[in-house]
């Protein structure tokens, strides 16, 4: 079960789109999973032949659980014909004891997409010995130091946590804090009595623990969506000391240039100003890497790419934030096409798992709702959110005279733990500069 967002700790398998014996390739959609926010199409992360489907439709499983088994040796990589090939070693894979080497877990996404995958360095013999004493499976552990190597301190910390409080999923902990539920009073229904988000919801609602899972009705979906947003936004406002900056940008050149381009483009491929705004935000984030990344364990971790989160409001209420991967490398037509496609599928409930991975920075564009500016709430663990208001003709000083220009208010909400306002100012300035030369987008 892949993690489809920072606030997900379990998912319901709705439907299998493959069956045992099927040959599948990396990127193929293999299943549909229901999360609190949306039904999501899940892609496979490797080539192979489906050996067994482990989880049945309707079953709820935690993030990280095995959904199906895949024989990677059975299928040649895409495009290589039928010739026998050695199975390519999967990159970013956790070191695993040598059990059944050809079998691969179908989904290798780490629980927290923001964290780097476990590094290959092996723990010391001393650590292994202590782990054995404490009954801890080292393969399940992420080291706290550079390189992800597990040290003795990690083990002791884990052992201490294990005796002092029950195991609680991160979302459940956040929900409990928000709802004021005492964790020691909650009966856990997860593996080994772990407390899950649903347990908290039941206690908070005054209900008894339920055994079976029922399908999520539309009303339930709206409720879950609200709770999920509530938990994440409460965490943001509780943990992140936001600072806000704002500037006004003249879009005259962008709008004129776009009008010219649109005369030549097919009607369905016409550009809208939002695409230029997104593109400019992505390129500016590349120029100011201090704002592009995540705040994890008390420090800022820059992201290698600009994965731009596009915050979308759904007609039925609520939000989804699909990601435009490496958005700073896309040209304007690509951004426009992706934006249309993601918006359409988000509203139809047909996003793919990879499109809900953790963005490195997000954009909220409320221009179409007619607001002048957006003072956003950052999505943790991100450290910045860029907001765009409506593009509207307004009075503006041009060459010492008063002119009417299409203006937009660009704002930045940023995490003061990670940066100071001088860095934030650099991002807004970059956005303004980039929008002054739209032909380079």
């Amino acid at each position, binding site marked *: 079960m892949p993690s489809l967002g920072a606030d997900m700790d379990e998912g319901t398998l709705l439907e299998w789109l493959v069956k045992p014996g099927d040959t599948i390739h990396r990127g193929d959609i293999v299943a549909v999973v229901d999360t609190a926010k949306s039904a999501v199409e899940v892609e496979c992360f490797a080539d192979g032949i489906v050996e067994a489907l482990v989880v049945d439709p309707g079953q709820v499983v935690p993030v990280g659980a095995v959904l199906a088994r895949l024989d990677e040796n059975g299928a040649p990589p895409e495009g290589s014909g039928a010739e026998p090939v050695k199975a390519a070693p999967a990159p970013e894979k956790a070191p695993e004891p040598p059990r059944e080497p050809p079998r691969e877990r179908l989904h290798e996404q780490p629980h927290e997409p923001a964290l780097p995958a476990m590094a290959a360095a092996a723990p010391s013999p001393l650590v292994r010995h202590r782990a054995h004493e404490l009954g801890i499976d080292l393969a399940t552990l992420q080291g706290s130091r550079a390189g992800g190597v597990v040290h003795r301190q990690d083990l002791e910390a884990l052992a201490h946590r294990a005796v002092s409080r029950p195991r609680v999923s991160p979302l459940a902990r956040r929900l409990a804090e928000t709802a004021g539920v005492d964790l020691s009073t909650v009966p856990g229904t997860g593996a080994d009595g772990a407390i899950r988000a649903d347990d908290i919801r039941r206690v908070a609602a005054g209900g008894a623990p339920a055994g079976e899972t029922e399908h999520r009705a539309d009303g339930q979906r709206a409720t879950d969506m609200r709770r999920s947003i509530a938990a994440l936004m409460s965490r943001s406002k509780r943990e992140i000391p936001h600072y806000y900056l704002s500037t006004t940008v003249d879009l005259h050149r962008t709008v004129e240039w776009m009008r010219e381009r*649109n005369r030549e483009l097919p*009607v369905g491929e*016409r550009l*809208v100003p*939002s695409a230029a705004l997104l593109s400019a935000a992505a390129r500016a984030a590349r120029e100011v890497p201090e704002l592009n990344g995540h705040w994890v364990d008390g420090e800022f971790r820059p992201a290698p790419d600009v994965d731009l989160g596009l915050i979308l409001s759904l007609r039925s209420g609520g939000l989804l934030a699909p990601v435009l991967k490496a958005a700073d490398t896309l040209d304007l037509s690509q951004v426009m096409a992706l934006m*249309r496609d993601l*918006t359409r599928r988000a509203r139809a409930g047909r996003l793919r798992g990879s499109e809900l991975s953790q963005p490195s920075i997000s954009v909220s564009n409320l221009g*179409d709702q007619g607001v002048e500016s957006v003072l956003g709430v950052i999505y943790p663990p991100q450290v910045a959110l860029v907001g765009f208001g409506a593009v509207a003709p307004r009075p503006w000083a041009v060459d010492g005279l008063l002119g009417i220009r299409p203006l937009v208010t660009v704002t930045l909400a940023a995490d003061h733990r990670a940066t100071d306002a001088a860095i934030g100012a650099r991002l807004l300035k970059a956005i303004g500069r980039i929008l002054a030369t739209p032909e380079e987008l």
Partner: protein
Amino acid sequence: MTPDQARTMLEATLREIVPDADLSTLAPGADLRDTFELDSLDFVELVDRLSTRAGFRIEEDDADGLRSVEAATRFLVAHTDGGGR
């Protein structure tokens, strides 16, 4: 295209973009973007589909003429044979 045909075409296209749109109570002059909360992407989609259906290219500068049912109907009639050309 007659005004009736134009209106039917517009309504069918709107329903594709906003499936639960209630068109029976829609005032002829009401702003389509405001009424159905169409964003700029929805509007591109609407113009694209109308263009295809009507069989002629609707220029961006003319898209403002599609703000309401009344205006859009008039625009479609004027730009097709029903306009008397």
